[in-house]
């Protein structure tokens, strides 16, 4: 053995090491490949030896060869051998090779699991470190699952070096094994406050990566990050956090408001450009998210733009680049502030740096106006000519098209000019964007009717010179424009000057060299052309001419019939037969033109690309329902041998709506329209973008001005768009003169005191009238299309799996798999069982008291968590820099004063029945709300509450509702005093309970009751248990195995003065009525003197409003809902209301979970949905001193109960 070792090391001395290999390769420059293959042979020999040092050396060399592009996957097994070496030196080589060459497809990778686990728990931190580093590069779903628990343990390692690596690698684990995210998240969060800055930075890094993909799940961490932001001095961490905030603000505008100040401070104070830049970026994100809400942030915008200008003017090209990049973000929402820097940006267009030019191009998009479009495009066109390299030229091309076509060609005043630009662009060689130009040509020709004649003449010229374009064989090359040209010439052939000439051009033999799909269009449009020529000739009585054309067709079409492309072949064959038939008829002197052109009668209108998708599924049509009951399994099995085709047919009917449905549908649609017209309840929305599709302007009544064709149209080969610029200037000048005249006249008129037009003509660019009267035909949309703007997310996105709600408590099934290993050494590390504790503590389990230590541990954690818990509260507190205080107690206070509503009003409904019982119930009903007619013995209490309410509830500046309509979403809540949805449940000298009931959309018929327990005594409260008496209709979800009579433990203890929240799920069967559940909280209060067992009774009140979930609704969908006719109606009226309409709506939104669909003056429509899917629509109208609420709902009982509740709320306004 010893001899072997010696021999091994002697061998090693003669082996090549890495340096020798490199030297060797450098010395064999001519026959490098040969030399390397020799070396690989040597390496193979070395790998066969037993000596690990030799093997490691070989693997090291392989790693080098891998860099040179050699595949080393064949050595995977040897790499694993080296990884398992006991010496760090070799291990490191092995892991490096593995990290460079292993991937999910490496089959031996599963052999590494145990080795890696062993290394992870190695006593040497560098063994562990090297394993973590390696694993981070080749982790697979299997490895992630098997090792997640081990890595999680390492997150609490004593060495920060290991901790930071373990934290960082967790991101990779999450990606590969998303189930691990929830169990690991609490600890990850903990690491945000790790004493070691490196670990902290790693945790920030991981959470930022996570949050970037699914920001909404991480909103609750905002307070924590905010704290870090104001306390950290590590620029790297700051940048990450600020970037993260940039991702979060769009979701929570209030967060943005809170951020502006500290960010602005940072912008002023920091000297690090990187930090400054990210701050500016995030401020921009904030401003974007606020832009809808409040426009008074012009100072911040100004600051940003100012700083960016400094960056752009800097001599450092990097800063210039980034400045432009950030500018483009501002551009989207605040174009005005960017436009003032147009000079600077145009200047950047001439920069020598391509990256900077590209960025400047992006900005141009927002700089154009009717006035300067031509000028800017002209400048770009000269750039196109000068540009070297296709990438930049293609970019220019797309930008020109983008700029011109933006917002429905808004800035184009002269479409002739635009067509000429497009035609000029076709002269670019080697562009990849032929199809883009083609699409533009088609779009313009179809949608701008006035331009068709001009377009056709240009297109026929293109077709004529097709040979110039056809040469490029590239896919999507410029020949694509011929597709458009052929179609335009065919479809609008009536505008052709020399149709015969064009026909011949389209039938040239050269055409067969074009791509198949273009040929197909040629063939089809040749017939259209043919039809129109035929008609002309027949009308002119030139029978011979007509026959000649037919002959031409018969002669030339066969070349397409022979095409290899099926589409072309088929079309050509059909058409050839048709033409031959016509020829026969013509021989008999039968007039055919009428019939032939009838083939292409009617106009093709543009259809919106999403139109098909937006056709709503008609009600009553269930696409998944069986039309014919499927045959039972046994039967079909019997039949299978006999009926081969039968089976397929069985499957098909599922997708095919029956014919009858179609008719039914049409009928219903008619009926609906009728009803819509007659229904006073149907709110006609102000023209929203969705609506526009429907009222396509009638074409007839728009005067189409003849184009002045004095301009020579065809100057082939010469750029011609330039002349338009001049012409356009002249035209504008003329226009201006005319306008000036008109204005003078008008002024005289106005002196007489009549206001004619609110807007006087000025020289603003918006005033430039287009050269042609342009009627842009809007794209057609199906009737009743539902607005749905959500972009379909890519279902293959790997990050989607990580879209996990992190605030839900952990369930049993979510434990990380813990390997029970035969080797005891694997479980050496003491922290091993900590994750277990954690998981247990998350669930309410009965055995809690077993380990006091665990309890304490948990307590600490809970407290920490709590800080971040109530985001809403954190966001609503005003002084920003204050670290988030424990939120719950104050929430409780608020609820006493303000939010007792849902509870109260149902009390109302039920008091009659309950009568005296209420009094017996005692304390917890303390703050009963006032009722119009009250029993005397309650009066004092009422007055007290009333007084409180008045003082608290009066809105600060209760201004009258603003006139402008508000759409979609709750009206601004800023003017209202802070409200909380938590209401008091019960209290005594020990504990105060407040609760909030929320419906959950995921689970039908379930509501979550969040109970906040506040310890008011000086004792520790523990062993808390909640027992609730289920009713038939409402049932508490209990942990498995516990019976109805068992109490459910509260998963925490409360030290004096502390409060915490516990959540319980209830299943409700019928939600149409409000209900109450009786319950008891039992607990042990322990202080220095001893422990006592205490109890507190409470009543959980599920109001109907608590079953509603705020659901936004668009006005169209709302209208559709109303007109569907299956909602029942009911209404209430409340007098004596002094509150402003705005606040009133806010109240309804807040307390009853409604959202405003639309608001016009003092009338608003509102919508909400119950957890069981009932739609509730409201029409709220405010009169002088009263408010009337009309409601429609799919369930009448639910509606009437809701309205009663609402009445009670409103009565207090």
């Amino acid at each position, binding site marked *: 053995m010893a001899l072997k070792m010696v021999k091994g090391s002697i061998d090693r001395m003669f082996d090549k090491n890495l340096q020798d290999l490199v030297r060797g390769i450098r010395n064999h420059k001519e026959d490098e490949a040969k030399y390397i293959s020799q070396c690989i042979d040597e390496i193979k020999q070395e790998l066969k030896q037993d000596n690990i040092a030799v093997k490691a050396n070989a693997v090291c060399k392989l790693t080098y060869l891998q860099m*040179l592009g050699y595949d080393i996957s064949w050595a995977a097994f040897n790499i694993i051998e080296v990884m398992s070496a006991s010496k*760090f*030196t070799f291990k490191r080589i092995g892991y490096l090779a593995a990290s460079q060459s292993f991937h999910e497809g490496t089959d031996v990778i599963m052999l590494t699991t145990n080795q890696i686990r062993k290394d992870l728990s190695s006593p040497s931190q560098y063994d562990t470190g090297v394993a*973590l*580093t390696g694993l981070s590069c080749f982790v697979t779903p299997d490895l992630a699952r098997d090792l997640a628990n081990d890595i999680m343990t390492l997150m609490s390692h004593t060495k920060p070096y290991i901790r930071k690596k373990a934290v960082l690698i967790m991101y990779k684990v999450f990606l590969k094994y998303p189930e691990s995210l929830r169990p690991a998240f609490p600890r990850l969060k903990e690491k945000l406050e790790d004493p070691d800055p490196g670990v902290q930075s*790693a945790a920030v890094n991981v959470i930022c990566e996570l949050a970037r993909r699914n920001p909404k799940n991480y909103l609750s961490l905002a307070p924590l990050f905010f704290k870090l932001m104001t306390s950290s001095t590590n620029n790297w961490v700051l940048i990450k956090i600020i970037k993260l905030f940039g991702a979060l603000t769009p979701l929570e505008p209030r967060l943005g408001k809170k951020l502006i100040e500290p960010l602005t401070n940072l912008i002023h104070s920091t000297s690090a450009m990187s930090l400054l830049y990210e701050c500016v970026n995030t401020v921009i994100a904030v401003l974007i998210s606020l832009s809808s809400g409040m426009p008074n942030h012009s100072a911040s915008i100004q600051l940003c733009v100012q700083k960016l200008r400094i960056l752009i003017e800097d001599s450092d090209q990097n800063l210039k680049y980034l400045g432009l990049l950030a500018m483009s973000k501002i551009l989207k929402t605040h174009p005005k502030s960017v436009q003032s820097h147009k000079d600077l940006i145009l200047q950047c267009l001439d920069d020598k740096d*391509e990256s900077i030019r590209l960025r400047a191009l992006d900005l141009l998009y927002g700089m154009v106006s009717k006035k300067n479009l031509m000028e800017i495009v002209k400048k770009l066109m000269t750039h196109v000519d000068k540009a070297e390299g296709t990438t930049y030229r293609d970019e220019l091309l797309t930008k020109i098209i983008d700029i011109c076509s933006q917002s429905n060609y808004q800035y184009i005043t002269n479409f002739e000019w635009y067509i000429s630009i497009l035609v000029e662009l076709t002269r670019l060689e080697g562009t990849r964007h032929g199809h883009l130009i083609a699409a533009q040509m088609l779009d313009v020709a179809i949608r701008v009717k006035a331009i068709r004649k001009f377009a056709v003449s240009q297109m026929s010229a293109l077709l004529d010179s097709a040979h110039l374009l056809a040469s490029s064989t590239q896919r999507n090359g410029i020949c694509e424009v011929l597709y458009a040209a052929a179609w335009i010439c065919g479809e609008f052939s009536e505008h052709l000057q020399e149709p015969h000439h064009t026909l011949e051009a389209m039938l040239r033999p050269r055409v067969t060299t074009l791509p198949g799909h273009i040929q197909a269009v040629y063939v089809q449009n040749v017939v259209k052309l043919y039809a129109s020529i035929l008609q002309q000739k027949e009308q002119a009585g030139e029978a011979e001419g007509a026959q000649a054309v037919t002959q031409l067709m018969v002669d030339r079409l066969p070349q397409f019939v022979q095409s290899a492309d099926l589409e072309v072949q088929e079309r050509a064959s059909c058409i050839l037969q048709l033409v031959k038939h016509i020829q026969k008829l013509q021989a008999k002197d039968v007039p055919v033109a009428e019939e032939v052109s009838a083939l292409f009668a009617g106009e093709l209108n543009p259809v919106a690309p999403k139109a098909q998708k937006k056709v709503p599924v008609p009600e009553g049509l269930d696409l998944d329902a069986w039309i014919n009951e499927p045959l039972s399994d046994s039967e079909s099995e019997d039949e299978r041998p006999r009926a081969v085709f039968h089976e397929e047919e069985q499957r098909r009917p599922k997708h095919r709506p029956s014919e009858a449905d179609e008719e039914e549908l049409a009928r219903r649609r008619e009926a609906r329209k009728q009803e819509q017209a007659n229904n006073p309840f149907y709110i006609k929305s102000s023209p929203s973008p969705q609506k526009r599709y429907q009222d396509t302007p009638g074409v007839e009544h728009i005067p189409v001005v003849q184009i002045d064709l004095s301009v020579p149209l065809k100057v082939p080969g010469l750029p011609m768009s330039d002349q338009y610029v001049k012409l356009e200037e002249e035209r504008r000048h003329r226009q201006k003169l005319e306008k000036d005249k008109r204005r003078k006249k008008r002024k005289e008129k106005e002196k007489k005191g009549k206001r004619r037009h609110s807007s006087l003509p000025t020289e603003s660019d918006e005033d430039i009238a287009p050269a042609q009267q342009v009627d842009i035909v809007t794209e057609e949309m199906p009737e009743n299309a539902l607005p749905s703007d959500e972009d379909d997310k890519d279902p293959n996105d790997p990050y989607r799996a990580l879209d996990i709600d992190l605030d839900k408590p952990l369930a049993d099934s979510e434990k990380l798999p813990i390997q029970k290993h035969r080797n005891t050494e694997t479980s050496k590390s003491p922290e091993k069982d900590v994750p277990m504790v954690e998981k247990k503590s998350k669930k309410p389990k009965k055995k809690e008291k077993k380990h006091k230590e665990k309890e304490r541990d948990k307590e600490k954690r809970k407290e920490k968590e709590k800080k971040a818990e109530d985001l809403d509260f954190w966001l609503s507190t005003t002084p920003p820099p204050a670290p988030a205080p424990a939120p719950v107690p104050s929430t409780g206070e608020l609820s006493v004063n303000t939010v007792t509503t849902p509870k109260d009003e149902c009390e109302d409904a039920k008091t009659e029945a309950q009568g005296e019982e209420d009094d017996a119930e005692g304390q917890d009903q303390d703050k009963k709300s006032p009722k119009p007619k009250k029993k005397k013995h309650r009066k004092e209490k009422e007055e007290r509450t009333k007084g409180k309410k008045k003082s608290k509830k009066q809105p600060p500046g209760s201004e009258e509702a603003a006139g402008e309509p508000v759409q979609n979403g709750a009206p601004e809540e800023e003017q209202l005093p802070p409200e909380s949805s938590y209401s008091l449940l019960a209290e005594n000298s020990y504990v105060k309970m407040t609760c909030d009931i929320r419906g959950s959309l995921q689970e039908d018929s379930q509501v979550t009751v969040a109970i906040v327990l506040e310890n008011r005594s000086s004792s520790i409260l523990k062993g808390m248990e909640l027992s609730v008496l289920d009713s038939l209709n409402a049932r508490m979800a209990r942990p498995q195995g516990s019976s109805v009579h068992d109490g459910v433990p509260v998963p925490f203890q409360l030290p004096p003065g502390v409060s915490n929240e516990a959540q319980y799920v209830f299943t409700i069967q019928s939600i149409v009525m409000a209900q109450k559940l009786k319950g008891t909280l039992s607990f042990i209060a322990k202080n220095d003197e001893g422990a006592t067992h205490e109890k507190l009774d409470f009543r959980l009140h599920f109001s109907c409003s608590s079953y509603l979930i705020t659901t936004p609704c668009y006005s169209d969908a709302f209208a559709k809902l109303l007109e569907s006719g299956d909602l029942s109606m009911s209404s209430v009226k409340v007098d004596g209301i002094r509150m402003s309409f705005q606040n009133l709506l806010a109240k309804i939104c807040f307390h009853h979970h409604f959202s405003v669909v639309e608001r016009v003056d003092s009338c608003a429509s509102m919508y909400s949905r119950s957890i069981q899917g009932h739609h509730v629509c409201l029409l709220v109208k405010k009169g002088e001193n009263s408010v009337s609420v009309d409601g429609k709902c799919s369930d009448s009982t639910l509606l009437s109960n809701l309205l009663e509740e609402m009445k009670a709320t409103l009565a207090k306004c």
Partner: protein
Amino acid sequence: MIQAILVFNNHGKPRLVRFYQRFPEEIQQQIVRETFHLVLKRDDNICNFLEGGSLIGGSDYKLIYRHYATLYFVFCVDSSESELGILDLIQVFVETLDKCFENVCELDLIFHMDKVHYILQEVVMGGMVLETNMNEIVAQIEAQNRLEKSEDQVLG
């Protein structure tokens, strides 16, 4: 996330190739070549950010590079990284190399590719920035080198 870290010389010879996303070796070489051609065209006095490497990523990705004497250091990163931050990081990486190799030059990288990798591993791990503090990085590397040496003596 950092998608790839490439170091090559003025002639496009790779000196360090570190991908954090799997690409077959051929594609890796293609990417190196493409990146080299993109970078080579650029003067030294224009910006260090580049968009439009067609092989990696797509529009979310950027190439951020620095040119030192004979070597290009190129990081391919997505939008979650701060551009200027990565530029600083490249500087940190190069300064660390300088410290560990004592006046680093291209030859050090050529003959000690493995060591360069080990140093990089202390800066970036699995595509995420691990440490930006140079002293900390150097300390860890030296500790590992000492460990290696002590093992060598046992062997010797």
